[in-house]
């Protein structure tokens, strides 16, 4: 009975207190009046770590709290609610990001979007394309001229960090504002989660892009780009209520393809 409250769509409204929570709070507070107060100050992950969806009676009250436990922008415990995932959940989400057609990713992350994927997938991607890009460039030059020395270009790291972090942070933000302006409901955290996991396939394809055959590289990057782009646009469509906003989904597709082509041309030339 209590679990349905955690899956209310209003949970994405930061700082808002859904009206039904009051009822739930009263029920639990009658039994253990002090428990809620005790759970509040320490980390929410302690209560969230016991189970992410199905909770017992007393810890159910605590499950309501993390959604509204906003302590301010500079308090780290406000953000633990977005990292409330376990290893198996993250792996599940990673695998499902590889399927371009299914389009059900949004329903998976609806109850518990996480920013862990965004942060660490983009960081891994930055490192991977910077390092493998250097390797790939070296191999290409060596194929033409056998005596080129190995030269590690550190500027690849700067460019990779700037482009990947910029893309992963700004594009979902732009789409969030766009959809808010156009009237559809949107959730910034879920957008960030979606775009973050969509970058995972580029990590895998970067390992294949080291092969110094130009035709093969183009094929790989186009396939990976198409898969990632369709993943993003199909999942974005569930936020678009009316059909004449399909242009938004198409533009997301185009942007993701643009990113993949940029990665190929700058790092794996």
């Amino acid at each position, binding site marked *: 009975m209590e679990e349905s409250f955690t899956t209310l769509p209003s949970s994405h409204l930061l700082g808002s207190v859904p009206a039904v929570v009051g009822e739930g709070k009263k029920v639990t507070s009658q039994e253990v009046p002090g428990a809620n107060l005790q759970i509040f100050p320490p*980390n929410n992950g302690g209560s*969230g770590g016991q189970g992410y969806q199905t909770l017992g009676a007393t810890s159910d009250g605590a499950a309501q709290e993390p959604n509204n436990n906003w302590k301010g922008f500079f308090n780290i415990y406000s953000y633990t609610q977005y990292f409330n995932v376990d*290893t198996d959940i993250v792996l599940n989400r990673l695998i499902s990001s590889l399927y371009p057609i299914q389009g059900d990713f949004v329903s998976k992350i609806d109850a518990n979007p996480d920013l862990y994927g965004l942060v660490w997938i983009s960081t891994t991607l930055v490192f991977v394309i910077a390092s493998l890009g250097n390797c790939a460039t070296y191999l290409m030059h060596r194929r033409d001229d056998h005596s080129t020395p190995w*030269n590690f270009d550190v500027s690849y790291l700067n460019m990779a960090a700037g482009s990947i972090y910029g893309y992963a942070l700004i594009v979902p933000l732009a789409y969030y504002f766009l959809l808010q302006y156009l009237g559809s409901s949107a959730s910034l955290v879920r957008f960030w989660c979606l775009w973050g996991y969509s970058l995972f396939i580029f990590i895998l394809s970067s390992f294949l892009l080291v092969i110094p055959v130009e035709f093969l590289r183009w094929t790989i990057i186009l396939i990976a780009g198409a898969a990632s782009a369709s993943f993003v646009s199909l999942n974005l469509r569930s936020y678009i209520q009316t059909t004449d906003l399909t242009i938004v989904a198409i533009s997301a597709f185009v942007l993701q393809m643009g990113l993949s082509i940029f990665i190929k041309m700058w790092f794996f030339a």
Partner: protein
Amino acid sequence: MSHSDTIPLHPSSQSDIDEIENLILNSHHSSVLPARPPSPPRASIPVSSTPPNPNPTPTFIPSNLPPPSIPKSTPTASIPRAPVPPPPGSTSTGGIASSGFGPAPNTLTEPVWDTVKRDLSRIVSNLKLVVFPNPFREDPGKALRDWDLWGPFFFIVFLGLTLSWSASVKKSEVFAVAFALLAAGAVILTLNVLLLGGHIIFFQSLSLLGYCLFPLDIGALICMLKDNVIIKVVVVAVTLAWSSWAAYPFMSTAVNPRRKALALYPVLLMYVSVGFLIIAID
């Protein structure tokens, strides 16, 4: 306080402790009981009544200030109002009274060499605890109880310098990238554990991640001296495994066991990227 050579200031312009001391000294009934014994003369150079102590141990030498019940007599030592640190190398190390303030006032006036030696020995002991096998490794509370940030600082700067020396072009950019990567990486890794709901102390974790860089430092040094790619790969692989093994118990016990991999993966990522930098820079 010394009224013999200074004009007594208005009580309101004295510091709080001075005020309390004056109250104690001027009221012989000691109606104001200090919470701790009266403060010693702060950073005073004792007169020759006490011989210079060759062993600079923080021994308790009664202060020149008389206890509150005795009428105040003119103190024999001139007590400076502001703490004046004596020149380094002075022989006044043993003469500082320590009462109520703990060891902190002692270290202000000891020779610089003593301070450096103490910090170095702490770095070495922390290093032995973290990086080398010892029975305390599984207990994160005990492992780095006496953490400090000097060790990590030295190791990060040393790694940056080594990488910069090894690089043939863009030396300053290499140093900047290495330093930023390691420093920001340590902070972000700690934040990651905290966000996943783990229990660690921020600076203790920074300290530990810095100490775990020590094997990579050795690897970088060897790679700088030997230029063969195969040797570099082998050395970096070994030191990378060593660093990860050093950091593993601390990180894994800090979070919920179901999130262990989530906390450990970024550590591995950082060390692999540093290892790659070591191999790739030439």
